[in-house]
């Protein structure tokens, strides 16, 4: 078959048009409701059934035609970039929203949706969604992290579940053998996942209530120095095929203790039965207290959406009015605490054993990253933590640099407000 020159050009032009129209915003397919078309984005959850569940919720909403996009890959980066354009989502879940997104007017004010129910939301996760007295995202579920330990391995080594950071360091050393390491804090030695947790354990904060650096204190260097001791003692498992968020290393016996999330609980329970317990991150020093990081993906409305009102109505229906769906989303597929305290209290699955301990730790010792803890502050701190843990860098010197950087960042965001 021969293709004429005109035919070839025609085909090329058609191809050009097709590729030019390749942008898929998710607004044009699926969805069953009447009214405006809404595009809703979620990050890809690891738990089976979650995708079908959120599509089912969207299909059940009749006042708008909601289409769900399930997005694998670097979701935070994808949404951050999409919010700069008109082709982004109308409603989306966000690991934030960040202060820059709020100050940049990229997300809509959702305060009015909380009328009469604000006090029922877990304050630890609602606070980072609140800025200037306005609420910018609806917390979907509460996620928390804790220390899993294998009871039999601790008993064999004659080790008690650690209640202080010093005890954790000693226990990890005693539990380390040729085949099993004492503790798994992630393949980077804990720099990424621990974040501010050791600082809270030392009785400090990332940012104080009046907006100042909360760890300009010798206790911070002391606590972080002990994390380095774990590394220097070779008590840490490093280079596991699956990272801290996956309980594989723990259930396979590669480590006696692992820092992971509440979501790992069903797997651990299934594999180990009763042979495990959970703890908060142990306190350090006389002013210290146990510490548990909590966080929440929030549902937000894009300020660029042409259907902001419809988007807010949909989110109110899904994340504020539909109690059954919130409970289903939190507990039927993975294992999370509902963001509404009334739902968390009545949830059968959270009422006993390690799950009940986890809920109690969240209430008693939970802390979320404050909104003023910007991504630039976080990466400066994480870099310093990595150098302290792995390179044995001086915690005092490293923290001094971080304090300077965080002060600059706090100054920058305050100037904008």
């Amino acid at each position, binding site marked *: 078959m021969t293709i004429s020159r005109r035919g070839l050009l025609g085909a090329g032009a058609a191809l050009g048009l097709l590729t030019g129209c390749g942008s898929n915003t998710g607004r044009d397919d699926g969805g069953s409701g009447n009214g405006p078309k809404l595009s809703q984005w979620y990050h890809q959850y690891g738990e089976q059934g979650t995708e079908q569940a959120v599509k089912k919720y969207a299909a059940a909403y009749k006042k708008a035609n909601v289409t769900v996009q399930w997005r694998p890959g670097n979701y935070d*980066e994808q949404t951050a970039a999409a919010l*700069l354009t008109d082709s982004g989502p109308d409603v989306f879940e966000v690991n934030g929203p960040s202060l*820059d997104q709020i100050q940049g007017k990229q997300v809509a004010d959702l305060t009015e949706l909380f009328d009469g129910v604000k006090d029922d939301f877990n304050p630890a996760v609602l606070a980072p969604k609140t800025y200037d007295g306005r609420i910018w995202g609806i917390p979907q579920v509460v996620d928390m992290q804790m220390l899993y330990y294998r009871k039999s391995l601790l008993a064999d080594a004659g080790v008690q579940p650690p209640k202080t950071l010093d005890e954790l360091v000693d226990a990890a050393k005693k539990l380390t053998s040729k085949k099993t390491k004492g503790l798994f804090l992630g393949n980077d030695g804990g720099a990424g*996942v621990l974040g501010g947790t050791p600082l809270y354990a030392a009785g400090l904060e990332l940012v104080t209530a009046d907006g100042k650096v909360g760890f300009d204190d010798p206790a911070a260097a002391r606590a972080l120095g002990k994390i380095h001791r774990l590394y220097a003692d070779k008590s840490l*498992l490093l280079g596991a095929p699956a990272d801290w968020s996956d309980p594989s290393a723990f259930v396979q016996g590669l480590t006696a203790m692992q820092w992971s999330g509440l979501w790992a609980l069903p797997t651990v329970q299934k594999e180990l039965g009763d042979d495990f317990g959970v703890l908060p991150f142990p306190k350090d020093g006389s002013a210290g207290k146990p510490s548990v990081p909590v966080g929440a993906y929030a549902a937000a409305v894009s300020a660029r959406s042409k259907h902001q009102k419809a988007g807010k109505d949909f989110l109110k229906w899904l994340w504020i009015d539909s109690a059954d769906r919130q409970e289903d989303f939190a507990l039927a597929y993975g294992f999370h605490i509902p963001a509404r305290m009334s739902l968390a209290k009545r949830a059968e699955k959270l009422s006993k054993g390690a799950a009940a301990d986890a809920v109690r730790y969240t209430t008693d010792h939970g802390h979320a990253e404050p909104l003023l803890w910007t991504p630039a502050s976080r990466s400066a701190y*994480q870099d310093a933590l990595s150098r302290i843990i792995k390179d*044995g860098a001086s915690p005092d010197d490293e923290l001094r640099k971080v304090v300077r950087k965080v002060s600059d960042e706090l100054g920058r965001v305050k100037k904008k407000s």
Partner: protein
Amino acid sequence: MTTTAPREQKATGRRKLWGHQNRTLWFWVFVGPFLLGLGVFTYIPLGWSVYLSFFDAHNTVTPDDFVGLGNYTDMLRNEAFTDSLWTFLVFSLFIVPATYALSLALALMVHRQRRAQAFFRSVFFLPAACSYVVAALIWKMSIFNGVRFGLANTVLGWFGGDQIAWLSTTDPPWYWAVIVTVRLWLQAGFYMVLFLAGLQRISPTLYEAAAVDGARPGWQVFRHITFPQLRATSVAVVLLLVINAFQAFDEFYNLLSDSRGYPPYARPPLVYLYYTALGQGQNLGLGSAGAVLLALIIAVVTVGQAKWFGLGRKEAE
């Protein structure tokens, strides 16, 4: 006559516009779309990036807070950025000579191979077709994971060695072994083909003359005949290797990043700028300033290197 004259004028005007046999027209039909693409997807973003670099552009591409050279001074004072340049330097010092030596050695081996030359050429070239992402994940999860059942650790175990957390240990910095070997495996075959082409261009009469003059085959012939004759190929290969090293991103990112970020060691400039501009920070002004600085550094290094090697001098003379 009165009716033909305007038609002729019209035809002449069209010829001027479209050229002889419509060559100008066809030139624009074929080149135009690519030129348009280049403008829209390369030069406009490039110009926009330079524009952004003078503004405080957090979470916006249409900023209004002009900061002059503030982003540039911030970036140059930024320890993380300067560290990333050191990472690149260390990486180049490893990868450029290693790839050069390995690909030249492979080319010499394959060139001398009398039987199944095409087979060996294909075998060594095949990794070049593999994605950097896939190769990085195989290296990270199967060969160089830090537990006892990783391939490298299993082999070490046979000889009584301890397990090594290849990507998580900074003292000694074993992660370089992982990063360098994956890139070596991926690119040595491609450069081998370039050297093979160079070897095939060397005239056999040179070797015959050398044999007549008493040159011993092997090292002496390689040093005095083969290596000097490969000068042009070597210059091109080194230039490409340095530019490729500057653009390193995929294997670093996939070997060392996790959901919580990226460790400060082995973080080349592109990875750092990715996190600054496109990560959660979304500091597009600072990221753009870094990108401009990096482009300037690449330009200076490339021009300097080309001058040093005398690229194009022979042709000019």
